[in-house]
């Protein structure tokens, strides 16, 4: 799956602005580096007059004080203008999403709106292209950081505080993000996707997410294993009696791009593999391994979860 995850390949408006700034700075830094290298070389091999000029106090003053002062001030003003533009008061028309970073996955909630119920998912957000999205970031455990390089800079998720990040995708696409504050254990495997869709597609998707799971389910056998194994203690499947809050909401898990916080592809096999061997795939994550389940049970579960589209 093609994902965008680079600061230098922006897909969002903030990332675009920062990318321009980045290239200006890289160009400037390269020029200054070669300038300093050139001066050093001239100091070493240059002719008499050149070297006398470099050896003077004026050189140190103009090169070491005035030049950095001017460049740095110009850069600073530019940077502050960009910062100011970003930190403006939130606009009322922004789409609001709540994301909680938890060891080691992302709890995503689209709040209820008017008559529409809330939608809860995990490890993936979908947003409409061209619209301002404001995400409320929090954490119930340790510090995490929400970073989607192709869309915007990062904002930390700090227990006890609610931070906000604003994103606007300029183009449709799948944007990959990854936790950027060491949170212990498998921090390395705490990634997520932000999928930017055309507005109509987005509305369809959100409507779907707000619905409970189809009832009766397509895979009755799998559903049976789900409850008999106690999965409902940690997981919620809206529309059933599974209301556990410890792990990700699985109501529409079959329709996501990946599993286990962007660690595995989304297939029935991957589900079975994860359920039995998750401690091997993502060591120390908080889900226990279900080695006691038979292959048949695992296959049924996998099929069931995949059917939760």
């Amino acid at each position, binding site marked *: 799956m093609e994902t965008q995850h680079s600061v230098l390949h922006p897909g969002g408006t903030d990332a675009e602005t920062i990318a321009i700034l980045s290239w200006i700075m890289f160009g400037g830094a390269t020029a200054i580096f070669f300038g300093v290298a050139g001066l050093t070389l001239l100091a070493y091999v240059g002719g008499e007059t050149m070297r006398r000029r470099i050896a003077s106090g004026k050189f140190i003053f103009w090169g070491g004080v005035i030049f950095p002062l001017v460049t740095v001030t110009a850069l600073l003003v530019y*940077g502050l203008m960009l910062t100011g533009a970003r930190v403006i008061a939130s606009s009322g028309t922004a789409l609001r999403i709540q994301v909680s970073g938890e060891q080691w996955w992302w709890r995503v909630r689209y709040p209820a709106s008017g008559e529409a119920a809330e939608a809860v998912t995990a490890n993936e957000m979908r947003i409409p292209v061209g619209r301002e999205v404001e995400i409320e970031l929090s954490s119930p455990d340790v510090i995490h950081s929400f970073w989607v390089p192709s869309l915007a800079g990062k904002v930390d998720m700090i227990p006890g505080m609610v931070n906000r990040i604003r994103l606007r995708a300029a183009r449709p696409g799948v944007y990959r993000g990854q936790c950027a504050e060491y949170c212990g254990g498998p921090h390395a495997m705490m990634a997520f996707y932000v999928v930017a869709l055309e507005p109509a597609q987005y509305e369809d998707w959100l409507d779907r997410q707000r619905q409970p799971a189809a009832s009766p389910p397509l895979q009755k056998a799998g559903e049976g294993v789900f409850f008999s194994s106690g999965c409902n203690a940690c997981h919620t499947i809206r529309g059933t009696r599974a209301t556990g809050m410890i792990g990700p909401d699985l109501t529409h898990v079959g329709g996501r791009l990946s599993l286990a916080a962007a660690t595995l592809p989304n297939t029935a096999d991957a589900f079975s593999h994860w359920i039995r061997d998750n401690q091997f795939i993502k060591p120390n994550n908080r889900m226990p391994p279900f080695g006691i389940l038979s292959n048949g049970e695992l296959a049924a579960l996998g099929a069931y979860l995949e059917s939760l589209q």
Partner: protein
Amino acid sequence: MRNYPNSLPRPKGELAKLEAIWAPPRGFKLLTAVNNTYIGLFYIGTALLFFVLAGILALLMRLQLAVPANDLIDQGTYNQFFTMHGTVMMFLFAVPVVEAIGVLLLPQMLAARDLPFPRLSAYAFWAYFIGGLFFFSSLFFDLAPDGGWFMYPPLTSSRYSPAENADFWLVGIGFIEISAIAGAIEIIVGILRTRAPGMSLDKMPVFAWSMLVFAGMIVFAFPAVILATFLLELERAFHWPFFIPEMGGDPLLWQHLFWFFGHPEVYIIFLPAAGMVSMIVPTMTGVPLAGYRLIVVALVATGFFSFGLWVHHMFATGIPELSLAFFSAAGMAVAIPSGIQVFAWIATFAKGRLRLTVPSLFILGFFAIFVIGGLTGVMVAMVPFNWQVHDSYFIVAHLHYVLFGGMVFPVFAAIYYWVPAVSARALSERLGRWAFALMFTGFNIAFFPMHIAGLMGMPRRVYTYAEGLGWEWYNLISTVGAFVLAAGILVCLVDLVLNFRFAVSGTAGNIWKAGTLDWLPNGMYGTRSIPIITSREPLWDDPELAGDVQKGRYYLPGASTGGRETLVTSPVDAVPQYLLQVPGQSWRSFLAAVFTAAFFLLLTVKLVTLALVCGVLALAMIIAWMWQTDPGENHPPVSIGGGIKLPVYVTGKISHSWWAVVILLLVAASMFVALLFSYLYIWTVSPQVWPIAEGQPMPELLWPIGSAAAFIASSAAIAYSGVMLTKARVWPLRLTLLFSCVALATALALEFHGQWDSGLRPTASSYGALVYTFFTVEAQLAVAALIMCIYTVARSVAGMLTPVRRATYDNTMLFWHYTVGQGLMSLLIVHGFPRIAE
């Protein structure tokens, strides 16, 4: 015809006596050595050992990251590795190595015979050596800390890091903090008070300036991290909630305290290296340093500015725009003093003719790498860019460019440069060139690609990464580069083994034709006689100087008191003031260090009783060591030559021990200010747990008033005992001292009782925790003060405290008044602030 202070020929046996007095211990007794040459070399060697150990961790990490989804090193081990790599490099290598080079070189550079407190250096070194090795060995027991080298709570609080690994970090680096503070005291007093006569501040070598700024920065920066580690350990061990939001704490408090230390820390590491560069460049170009004054200003300015930058580590935490703007501006401003230094060095190259020796190559390598690091530093000071690259591999690249380029390359230059001063043979030019070439290319191949990996979205502190993100090639190239770099370092180590032969008198000598005093011929006693300084490059301006000094024509050519001595001079103009009697080898400082290290380490593994026993033994050793200080006027004033007669004992503000206590009190005050900041900061974040908001009763005013009265009474008694001492009224002296002790203890008891009685508990909320921390910090000072006071009484009883021989009393009194002052401030804040705050 010059007027030398002392005439020739020198008396027979004068030199032999000097040599005998300064002779180093042999064999097993080497453990008792305190002379700066030995301690300096032990220190440098140990620091290099930690460099290699932490470097091996890095190589293993790079092997793990060479390919995606690798399983060479498992998650838990890798998390310990990167934590230890950072912690060992920053605390056990970077600060110690530059401090160690200072310990080794400063006395020589200032023509002093030793540092002013040699046993303190020895104590600091041995505590670091033992403690550091044990700390590193935690890796072999799966007990190494794994919270990252900056250990952010809540991850490192007891709930999310229940095992002892985090405690190893918190308590384990306690002795590093002691070492650094002890070193700072030593270096400040040494640089300001033991310079050669005539070496006014504007003739002082730039390295000495940089070490002075270094030490000053340690005094004001380290206390913040000492407090932070103390608070986190209290939270982990006793559940005093400073960083737990549900109890009114704030994880960001840790970040503020840590980075208030952490940012100056990197300049603490860089400035001495810049100082070394400023010594090597003039020698290699054959001309004096261009822009000496500008460079000194740049060093001091960097030191100051660096305290105003720390929030740039926190740009992504959601702080307000005004903070972002201020700290961004400050972060960029600090580039200017570095720019001054770079251009001054280029100007020096232009003035002279650079000889491309191995030290010069390392300096050029430093230039290239440090300038790149500085440029990326300006980039990351730009907030929007920072929001993208913070906590990514771009930052890993940046920090290694500035630290490796800014400190490691100059240190390797320094090794090649100064080895001839302490070794019979210089190092090999051929091997040195290979070491440089491998290190320079290896470093850039290893770290440059990390800029790109970071921009492509790779966060830091990840033990593995997924395939298909495009990070594979960059990581593989970095790994190859790391091994090339390691090969270069290995070549240097081989060079040291093959060529370094420690010598004091038969050294390779001034092969670079340098102009500063560190290149005078010397023995264990430093130089034979202490010269008069009239310029910045004394050896260039007076070709006869080395010979004259050797012959004993200058000051103090012998050992007049029959013991080790050095000259104490005035801080600005270096006018001789008195003779410092320098201690020689001692078991007591060594044993004190062993027991101190044992105390911290045993506490870490929760063997509390044994830890306390070692703590008591450490204290006993320290007291035994102190007992040998304050010798009084045990010798009439000494003629050092040139008609100058100096006392061998002084007391009061001119005394080096007074200065040491003052610096120690600045450390205590800095820690108190950090605590005050913590209290006010938590109040702004969680006013709801303050008593007025909670509707909780505060202690009745009678308690703090009583406590304050007891504090003041103890100070008054101490002052009165000083008068009794002057009048030689022995029993009033002893009784008032003891009364002071009782008054101080009462002051503390009253404060504690008042708080406890009101029902407040430290585990109740962040407010409770902070109130009891004010008490605890004050109690620590008070216990030290009480010990000092009883010790002073003992000195009096032993007949070692007289109206003249009174340094012990003076230092105790100074410490006492500070303790009382801090106590009164604590009472004012703890009892006054909640009553006036809304």
